[in-house]
C-alpha cells in the first residue's frame, strides 16, 4: 500500500516536472508576451500542483502534508496574480498581441476601466517604484 502511494506520488512529481519543462519550452517558442505569459503561468501552477500532490502522497498524513497544502495555496494565489500584473504591464507599455483572430483595441481589453482613454497616460494610481 505504502509502496503504491510512493509510486503514484513519484509519478505525479515526474509529471509535474515535465509540465513545467513544457512551460519553459513554451516560453521560448511562443511568439509574443501574452502567449508566453500564458505558457509560463499555467504550467507553473499546474506543475506545482502535481509536484505538491505527489509529495503529499509520499509523505502521507503528516505535518509535512499540511505545510505542502499551505505552499500550494500560496502558489495558487501568487502565480496567477503575477501573470495578471505582467500582462497588465505589457499591455500598458504598448505591446499588442500578435496572434488571434482579431486585434484587440486598448479600451476593450482594459475591461473595467471604462471608456477608451489612452492607457499610457492614466498614471494616477501608480505610485510604485518610480521615483
Amino acid at each position: 500500500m505504502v509502496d503504491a502511494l510512493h509510486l503514484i506520488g513519484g509519478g505525479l512529481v515526474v509529471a509535474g516536472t515535465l509540465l513545467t519543462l513544457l512551460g519553459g519550452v513554451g516560453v521560448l517558442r511562443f511568439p509574443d508576451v501574452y502567449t508566453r505569459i500564458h505558457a509560463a503561468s499555467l504550467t507553473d501552477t499546474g506543475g506545482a500542483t502535481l509536484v505538491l500532490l505527489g509529495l503529499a502522497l509520499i509523505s502521507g498524513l503528516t505535518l509535512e502534508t499540511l505545510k505542502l497544502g499551505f505552499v500550494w495555496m500560496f502558489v495558487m494565489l501568487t502565480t496567477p496574480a503575477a501573470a495578471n500584473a505582467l500582462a497588465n504591464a505589457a499591455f500598458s507599455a504598448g505591446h499588442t498581441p500578435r496572434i488571434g483572430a482579431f486585434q484587440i483595441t486598448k479600451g476593450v481589453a482594459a475591461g473595467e476601466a471604462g471608456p477608451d482613454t489612452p492607457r499610457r497616460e492614466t498614471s494616477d494610481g501608480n505610485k510604485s517604484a518610480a521615483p
Partner: protein
Amino acid sequence: MSEIALQVNFALNIALLLMLIAVGVAIARMRSLLAAILLMGVYSLVSAVWLIVMDAADVAFTEAVVGAGISTIVLLGAILLVRAGPVRHNWRMTIAPAVLVLGVGGLLVYAMTGLPEFGDPASPANAYVGRNYLIQTPDEIGVPNVVTAVLASYRGFDTLGETVVVFAAGIGVALMLGFGPRSSLPPLPAAMGDHHVVLRVTARLLIPLIALFAFYVQFHGDLGAGGGFQAGVILAVAPILHALVFGLHETIAALPVRAVRSIATLGVLLFAGVGVICMINGGGFLDYDHLFPPGVEAIIPPGLLGDPDHAHQWGQHFGIFFIELGVLLTVAATMVTIFYGFAGRAVEEP
C-alpha cells in the same frame, strides 16, 4: 540501494555546479543589465538548491530570500534610477583582466590541490571544532538546530557584528538616498494604468500571510531552518509589496521613515542589551547562562521558564529568543529603509 543514494547526491552536486557555471557565463556575456540582474536571481535560486544538496538548509533559505529576493529588488530599483542602457563592451578592457583572472585562478587551483578530498568526514575542518558543536549542542544549548545554536550562542558575537553591518548599511543607504531633493532625473513614464484590481485583492490577502509566515520562520528557527535573518527579510517583503501595489506614499504614511529607522536601532540595542544584562548578572558578554540572575530558580514558579530538568539551558533558550528578535527587527527595518531609499528617494517627514 546503498551506494546509489550517495551517487545521486554527488551527481546532483555536479549537475547544479555546472548549471551555476553556465548561468555565470551567461551573466558575464549579457549586455542587457535587466537580463543580467534576472540571471543573478536565477543564479541565487540554483545555488539555493545546491546548498540543499550540500545539507546547508539554513544557508539555502537565506540565499533564496536574500540573493534571489532582496538583492534583486535592490538591483532593479537601482537600474530604474540610473536608467542605464546596455553595457558597452570595450575590447581594451578584456585582455588585462583576463590575465589577472587567470593568474588568480592558477593560484587558486594550486591551492585547491592541497585541500582534503571533498566530503571527507575526517578532514580537519569537519573533525575538529565543527564536530564538537554537534556533540556539545544538545547538552549545552539544547536546541535541535545546531546551526542556530552556533549562530546565536557559540558565535553570537559574529552575529552581533553582522547585525551591525546590516544596521550600518541602512545608515549608508539613508545617508546617500534618504535626504534632499528627490532624484534630479526626468520622471519615468507611467508603467501601469489604474487597473490592477487583481493585484490589490491578492496583495490584501497576501500581506498578512507574509507577516505570519515571517513569524513562523522566526520562531521555528530553533527547530528547523530559519531564524532572524530569513524572517526579517520575509517580514520586510510585506511593506515592500504594499508599496508596490498601493503606492509608496501610503506605505510611508503607515510606516514613517523615522519609525522604521528607530526600529532598526532598537534591534541592535536589544541584541547588545542582552549581552550587557548577561554581564550585569555576573557572566561574560552574551553569556546566556547568566541571562537570569543567580538563584532565579528559587523565585519563579516551576515550569515558567522551561523544563526544570534542564535549568542550565533556560538562559540559552531565552537568550537565543531575544537576540533573534533583535536580528529580526534590525534586518526587517533596514530592508524597508533600503527599499524606501531606492523606491522613493524618501524624504524625512517634516
